[in-house]
């Protein structure tokens, strides 16, 4: 990673996510966004670094905490924001909202709000690619909380048994809602767990976008080459509450503050500045560009329309309701 423009690009991606999420929090308070809202603030380096490592023909599966993934994958902020509003112009036509971002063009398959629910799907994606001899990989994101679910076990075994081209990408932010990892896993070494399925596994500093990218690129190329599935554990942290309803009784302010010192964005800004690639003016320009994009996204969402209620039962089945 030597190219200055690329590095600034990474920073810009992270900034887009951060500002987008901050705007969402604001819009949630204003009642524009409803339902559950899970912010990705603090974890931006992961989605950013991973998406840089994938090709357009690859598939991505994510969770309900997926705005960052959607943006980094290239779904326009306009379409994502309109989806948050529930507008017809949203990327899921407004049907899904914050937890169910989908986009066929970028092969972004959600947006799954059942913890662990995407893992078996990912195995199936890999199976299809393998059977069709397509050199594609499927990237499946999930939180460390999902590791306790039976579907984690079943999907990792299937993928390894059948040597499927799947990347299992665990975003270990230490908490599943209020449950700290040592309170949910007898063995908190998640890579060791993954290896028990005979799957290569590697911990990655999830607060360092370049580390994420380097580790992921290597894994992607091995998976694409037919080496079977891999597991990556990104060690990260969410700076905000689990969702907008969470009083955060379960962790110290102190702990949060410690992690904030490792902010993936602030840290990277400092690094680029130290490397002479970025100065205050350039950063301000970046911020301005991002602010413009977000403002445009909000405007787009505001201007969007509501799907006519007559279409309620559309898309239950391909040909009308069943």
């Amino acid at each position: 990673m030597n190219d200055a423009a690329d590095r600034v690009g990474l920073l810009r991606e992270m900034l887009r996510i951060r500002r987008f999420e901050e705007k969402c929090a604001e819009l949630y308070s204003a009642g524009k966004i409803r339902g559950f809202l899970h912010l990705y603030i603090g974890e931006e380096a992961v989605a950013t670094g991973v998406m840089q490592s994938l090709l357009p023909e690859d598939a991505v599966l994510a969770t309900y905490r997926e705005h960052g993934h959607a943006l980094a994958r290239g779904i326009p902020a306009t379409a994502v924001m309109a989806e948050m509003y529930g507008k017809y112009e949203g990327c899921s036509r407004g049907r899904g909202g914050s937890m169910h971002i989908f986009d066929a063009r970028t092969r972004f398959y959600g947006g799954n709000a059942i913890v662990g629910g995407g893992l078996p799907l990912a195995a199936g994606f890999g199976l299809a690619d393998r059977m069709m001899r397509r050199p594609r990989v499927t990237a499946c994101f999930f939180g460390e909380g999902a590791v306790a679910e039976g579907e984690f076990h079943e999907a990792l075994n299937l993928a390894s048994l059948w040597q499927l081209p799947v990347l299992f990408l665990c975003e270990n932010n230490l908490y599943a809602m209020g449950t700290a990892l040592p309170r949910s896993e007898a063995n908190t070494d998640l890579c060791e767990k993954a290896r028990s399925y005979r799957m290569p596994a590697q911990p990655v500093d999830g607060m360092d976008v370049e580390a994420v990218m380097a580790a992921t690129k290597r894994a992607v190329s091995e998976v694409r080459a037919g080496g079977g599935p891999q597991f990556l554990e990104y060690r990260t942290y969410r700076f905000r509450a689990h969702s907008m309803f969470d009083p955060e009784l379960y962790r110290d302010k102190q702990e949060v503050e410690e992690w904030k010192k490792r902010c993936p964005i602030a840290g990277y800004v400092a690094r680029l500045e130290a490397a002479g690639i970025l100065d205050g003016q350039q950063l301000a320009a970046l911020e301005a560009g991002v602010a413009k994009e977000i403002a445009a996204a909000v405007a787009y969402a505001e201007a969007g329309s509501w799907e006519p209620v007559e279409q309620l039962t559309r898309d239950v089945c391909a040909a009308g309701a069943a």
Partner: protein
Amino acid sequence: MSGSTATVRTTYRDALREALRDALARDERVFLMGEDVGRYGGTYAVSKGLLAEFGEERVRDTPLSESGFVGAGIGAALNGMLPIVEVMTCNFSLLALDQIVNNAATLRHMSGGQFGVPVVIRMATGAGRQLAAQHSHSFEGWYAHVPGIRILTPATLEDARGMLWTALMDPDPVIIFENALLYNLEGELAAGAGPVDIDKAAVRRSGEALTLVTYGGSLGKTLAAADVLAEQGIAAEVIDLRTLRPLDMPTVLTSLAKTHRMVIVDEGWKSGSLSAEIMARVMEEAFYDLDAPVARVCGVEVPIPYPKHLEDAAIPQVAGIVEAALRTLSHHV
């Protein structure tokens, strides 16, 4: 139970918590187990404070393993405990359904009556909060298909406070569905409120013109519809089923024998809903009492969409209930 008429102002959530506290205090075999019931304080803050009061053995946070911890609750019940298992919402309960159907509901029978499973499983249910397709299910009617389990749907503060202990004393598995929209319901509750029966439906409003049958989260809307009808001079009787399995058909049919007309309100998807079963029972047991076909107001057959206007259109609303009632009344024999 208490003779006092004093009341306290409380909420459905607090009433549930009082019931949990009471149960934990009453019997050392009782414990509460589920995702984030402890440190987090419960997703809906129902169990907030109980960890501090009863300790982490008895207010037990679990990993995300629905089948595992529901099965563990069943096993603990078989082995002498009275577990209260919280499945955060019914949306996630499908992951534990095999344990519920093939173990909890079946073991007494398969063992020739040797073993019982006195577990209580609580879960939030229902739509209406813009949580979209995967988080808005109403599965209580679906669960009511299964012999060997009892299904409760507290719709009032009394029932939120009172059903838990009675359920725990039931020697068989009981599932309590708490409509998530009710948690903030506020009102007066008798100061000495305690356990209530779980066998009978309740007439929540008396009337002669027609019978509105409902339960859980739809009770409020149905009562509101009865108000609207009353303004038009139509006296609707409102029945809260309270227990979906076994159904208290006598209470339903007694009302029907008086009104001869019935509308059922139920948030579940229409086809195969609980309302269908009640229509079938009426067909079987009271066909000649009917002055008009029984009608139902149900969830539209669509995964619940996120936008408010579409979600509202997908589940029963006051206007739809009123309309169905008027249509039913317009039939002439």
